[in-house]
């Protein structure tokens, strides 16, 4: 046994077998293991050792493609002929009374049809608009949920709800819960990685925070060019051989001190430095795409140019390539055992100029995501990789008439009452459309799914019971699903 593991093992064993008095600590140790809260004795000095799920399951990794800002489901996934028919008409008072808007003025609000053409795809006959020709080809792999709804209609709170299960600060995100529950199989990389492009999100770092969980469960942002992870590069003028020699000297000093102080925390720190050293070569290798086949790069669209459309919101030039690279990196990450990859693009917040900017964004996202799903499938990874496409809410069937302005309505406002998400792989039953909205896409009329239900199901796919995956903080056992959440059985393969 490695001396490091031995040090940790020793402390653990003492801890588990001690039966000093009363109840004894043996039972305690057994309970800990039963809860999956401590790895088995003798586990390696790994900050995120893999842990068994509550029950067997297919999904091992998750790629969450988060389209920040709220894409218009009415122009992408949820065709509404009736809405087109009613284009320019007011909304019935009965619907207006109960709702709040961010910018829409109720008095002059008018329904806005979609200019998109929808067609049916795959054996299942799933609708996609003309903006998503590549994703449409994956229809039979996809679950399309049209009946998502949320409680928040401002971006940052709604993003917190989508990532943490509740619109409150200080809570762990989905990736934190998954790595907390299951650890990670990645030996040389963090278990939870964030890849972002675009103009910056409303939520910033709170979208990959670990909240009250230790920071080892926080998402680590990777850049797709230059230095992939912060501080990965040695200081100026320090060659790898001196880094290695330095770490060897450091290990000697730390071991000496471990012998003196007997604190297993020192052993952990030695292990952390070794993992850091491995990351220094693993992370650059990860973002080096030179070994990928030209056909793969082509399929993801890594070499595409941005189309000549002006789209302020999407974040300036170069988004097409950046997003395509991020999708390809997501595959490379899950191949290396990374548990959770958050691919973020901001922003889809089309309050105006929808008909120009949505095609820009959709064009950016469509081909790489479709290629990612196909690539995972071809490599036999799709079964164990859950791919999610979603956002914090949807967009209104009403045109946005800020300030009562009716002359220049070119966008849609925030809509928390109904929106669409896509999922594939990881034990999801593809080729199905779940849920239904009313004829103008305002409310869910069949099979509503709250964000908490989505989270419960996501955890279930990973073999985790959302009621049991808890962490006590200030007297309360917190869960990803807050106080609600039901597993949607129909989604499971």
């Amino acid at each position, binding site marked *: 046994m490695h001396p490091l593991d031995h040090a940790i093992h020793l402390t653990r064993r003492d801890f588990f077998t001690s039966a000093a008095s009363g109840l004894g*600590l043996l039972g305690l140790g057994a309970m800990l293991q039963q809860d999956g809260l401590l790895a088995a004795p003798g586990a390696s000095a790994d900050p995120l050792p893999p842990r068994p799920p509550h029950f067997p399951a297919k999904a091992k990794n998750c790629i969450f493609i988060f389209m920040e800002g709220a894409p218009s489901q009415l122009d992408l996934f949820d065709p509404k002929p009736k809405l087109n028919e009613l284009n320019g008409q007011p909304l019935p008072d009965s619907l207006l009374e109960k709702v709040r808007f961010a910018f829409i003025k109720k008095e002059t609000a008018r329904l806005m049809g979609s200019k998109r053409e929808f067609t049916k795809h795959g054996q299942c006959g799933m609708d996609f608009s003309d903006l998503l020709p590549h994703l449409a080809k994956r229809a039979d792999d996809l679950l399309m949920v049209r009946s998502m709804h949320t409680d928040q209609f401002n971006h940052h709170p709604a993003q917190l709800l989508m990532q943490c299960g509740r619109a409150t600060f200080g809570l762990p995100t989905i990736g934190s819960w998954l790595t907390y529950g299951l650890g990670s199989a990645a030996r040389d990389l963090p278990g939870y990685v964030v890849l972002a492009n675009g103009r910056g999100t409303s939520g910033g770092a709170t979208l990959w925070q670990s909240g009250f969980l230790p920071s080892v469960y926080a998402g680590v942002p990777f850049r797709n060019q230059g230095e992939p992870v912060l501080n990965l590069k*040695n200081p100026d003028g320090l060659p790898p051989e001196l880094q290695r020699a330095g770490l060897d000297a450091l290990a000697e000093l730390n071991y000496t001190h471990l012998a003196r102080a007997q604190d297993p925390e020192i052993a952990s720190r030695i292990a952390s430095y070794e*993992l850091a050293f491995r990351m220094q070569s693993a992370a650059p290798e990860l973002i080096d795409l030179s070994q990928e086949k030209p056909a793969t790069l082509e399929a993801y669209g890594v070499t595409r140019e941005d189309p000549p459309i002006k789209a302020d919101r999407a974040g300036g030039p170069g988004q097409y390539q950046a997003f395509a690279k991020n999708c390809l990196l997501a595959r490379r990450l899950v191949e290396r055992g990374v548990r959770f990859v958050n691919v973020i693009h901001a922003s889809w917040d089309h309050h105006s100029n929808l008909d120009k900017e949505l095609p820009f964004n959709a064009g950016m996202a469509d081909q790489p995501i479709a290629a990612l799903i196909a690539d995972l499938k071809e490599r036999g990874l799709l079964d164990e990789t859950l791919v999610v496409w979603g956002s914090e809410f949807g967009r209104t069937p009403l045109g946005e008439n800020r300030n009562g302005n009716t002359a220049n309505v070119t966008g849609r406002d925030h809509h928390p009452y109904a929106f669409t998400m896509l999922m594939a792989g990881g034990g999801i039953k593809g080729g199905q459309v779940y849920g239904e909205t009313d004829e103008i896409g305002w409310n869910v009329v069949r099979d509503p799914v709250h964000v908490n239900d989505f989270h419960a199901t996501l955890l279930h796919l990973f073999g985790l019971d959302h009621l049991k995956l808890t962490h006590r903080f200030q007297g309360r056992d917190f869960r990803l699903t807050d106080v609600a959440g039901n597993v949607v059985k129909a989604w499971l393969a």
Partner: protein
Amino acid sequence: MRLHLPLHLLFLATAALAAEPPDVQRIFAEHCLECHGPDKAKGGLTLTSREAVLKELESGARAVVPGDLKQSELIARILSTDADEQMPPKKKKPLQPAEVAALKKWVVSGAEWKIHWAYESVKRVEPPKIQNPKAPVRNPIDAFILARLAAKSLGSSPEANRYTLIRRLSYDLLGLPPTPEEADTFVADRASDAYEKLVERLLASPHFGERWGRHWLDRARFADSDGYEKDNARPDAWRYRDWVIDAVNRDMPFDQFTVEQLAGDLLPNATPEQKLATAFHRQTLTNTEGGADKEQFRVEATFDRTETTAGVWLAHTFTCARCHTHKYDRLSQREYYQMFAFFNDAEDTTAPIKISDAAVREYEQSKAKHGAKLKDLEAKLAAVTKEVASRQVAWEKDLQIRLQTAAAGEPKIVPAKILSVTSAGKTTFKALPDGSQLATGKVPAKDTYTVTIELPTARVSGLRVEALPDDSLPRKGPGRSAGGNFVLTEIGVRTDGKVPLHSPHADHSQVNWPVEAVIDGQPETGWGIAPQTGKEHAATFYFARVVDGAKTRKLTVTLDQQYKSGSHSLGRFRIGVLVGETAETIAPLAVREVLEMPAADRGEDQAKIVRDYFAKVDPVAQQAAEQLAAANAAAPKPPFMDVRVLTTKQRETKVLHRGEFLSPTDLVEPGGPSIVPAIKTRNGERADRLDLARWLVSPENPLTPRVIANQFWMHLFGEEIVRTPGDFGVRGEKPTHPELLDWLASELVRNGWSRKQLIRTIVTSATYRQRSEMRPELAEIDPLNLLLARQNRVRLDAEIVRDVHLAVSGLLSSKIGGPSVFPPLPPGVAEIRYANNFKWAEAKDESRFRRGMYTFFKRTAPYPDLIVFDCPDANSVSLKRNISNTPLQALTTLNSRAFAEAAQAMAKRLLADADDAARLQHCVRLCLTRPATTAELATLGRLLDQARAYYTTHPDEAKAAAGDADRAIEVAALAATVRIVMNTDEFITRE
């Protein structure tokens, strides 16, 4: 990898160690109250008081019949194996045999019900007598600790050596390492009160306020920005931080400290500083996202104030009771809103606060100098400001009308007829048939082309510059650099006056050479197109003031090409004009978004967007802004700043159904929770924040002194007497040493709430002074060190990790207080922010090397070196920091710029020493205080030799590693060595 028990199991460990049966009420809280608590009471059973458990149930049975196991339904149910009867139900956590036994014993012995320990009044008991005359009893703390150890036949650990002691004290009290000289003095001091003298010196240091002030700022969720999407800066936030540091340094009694922060504004004749103290509750987040409901986020902030107050002073989690009566603790939803009402009666405001005493003195002096000159200037400025405001109103109206009628789609682009084109240098131009101009002649280092064009007789809303390829240019151009690139640094458009431009965009911009830079007024930045050379590109600029071509026939365009390395001018270009207006040409998106909102709905941030833009595009406003800036620069600034504080505004408070601000139900009055004695009001009328604050620190309230004593213990031992410092409720841990906790609490109050006195008492105990090394026999009996048979080893806090690196390398600035600073930030961190709206202006001066607590804290893009070491994110109250151990921490201290700079500085510092041995010994002394062992010196010596050998043969690498230092090889080799000492676990651990 720390041996952390999940909190819900810790209590069993505590009970096991105490050889006590598990506490019955704690078992109920852990297993039963979710269904049989004050909130739900399933089957009519509430397990929260003796009366309640003895009551007849809905079924007619009784849960507990004292002394009678058979008649007690509770016992029958926990023993049952029938799935329908069994309690807790099968899907819940099962009871442990010891817990079942404890419940049985409790029923048999009469089902006595004790008041929850935390709600009992503080009882000061005499410390136990320790029989062993040799036992190290320095003060009563030791007697309490030793008595429990003796019961387990254990002894405490011996006193740590003096190097460890001075380092421990310096880290704990100041967050800074002792210098080797300070350590030597202490080690050599044979006086019997050497240790006490050291304690006094450290308590008197002004850095004490930084260290212990920062502990408090965790609780205040202090940050330099608003939070949420926009996350705007709060340039006044630091003033409250200064207040905290000062109050701690002056040892402001904790009761006064409490009252001023919660209700300083309500004190009779409140001073500005007392008002400033209320900024404690202005650290709540502010959401200025477009379309956000202000009331919703006011209520949200009020929740936070309520819950933070309960967490910090009462160590209770009130959050659950926002939506429903608490499941475990005795807190109804109604009581929650009574507490909430105190803060619902508060209102956000600002108060003018003096910046600092030094600023006031400076102001008095310069004001005397300026005198009358100032008055004239002020009057003049007032007039101009008024004029600008009225111009802006007219301008906004005009824009709004134009926006309403603007055409959809893209504006038409018409090629412009070029009347003349000249070069500031010697470039000559050839007109081509397609209307473009081809530059010829020698390529100048820098140039400005001046182009005069004729306008069509239409409204012209913008201009397009096309850069075109040509076979005559290097790599076909369109630029004249060897690679075919160009850099357009600035563009100017004039008719009879300057035409301001906005929203530049291009089909393609080179990385770091964005088209936006063409109108940023800075000649060093500009637009380039590499690597996309040999192709046609175009940049479009909109006119902030539309030009009527029918009236104005000519327009002059200047194309500056001032790229600092030279020879990057345009090879072939054409100019087109935009005819007609669309929304996009009228104003930038950010301005349009605001103009579309009613003026009344705009917040200050939104108003500022429009005002700033107007100041750029209106000639009068521009002039006024310049004048104002000049006047501001000349006039002495009043030494005051507006700081966010609280004031009073009475509101009706109603219970909010499920915490939803749109669902108010019953009216409530301000009042305290029933777990502690009732709040007394000053005048018998409606209670206010001042009554609340005074009640929190009143002798009747047993919670506050216990909670605070426990917090202080945590900061000095790394662990607490109550191991759930944020939860003294029924689900929280019981104190490991209840009598000691009460003794400390009573000491705190008895000494007039002096924090320094409490710290002095604790650190002078023998318990504190023990060695921290683990003892094998203790790992068996007390792996969590609950009994304190030794000190704990504690990793340093995030800010302190930075501070000690800077301190030992000699870089650390000793300045205390003042505005937040911007040390080097790795690229790509600020950019993750919403709409990339955040620029980090890296400090070039001493403020690069300020203590970590002064680093500007942006809530949505916090400083990575801090976050990676578990610095709280300031979005909600932090009562105890996590301590994690990750590879990212290793990467930070190995490679991050700040830490590499520290190693470099340390290396330079060591050059003054005689030889390698002296240097390495000095380094170890600086970092670890103690002398190095021979083995350690050998290890480091080998590394130093290897590094020196490497750099001797790689002088360029040496230069890079040494910065620009002389003796680069030596500095580089030493830096590569000392950084290893600075990465040891020991260096960032308080032993």
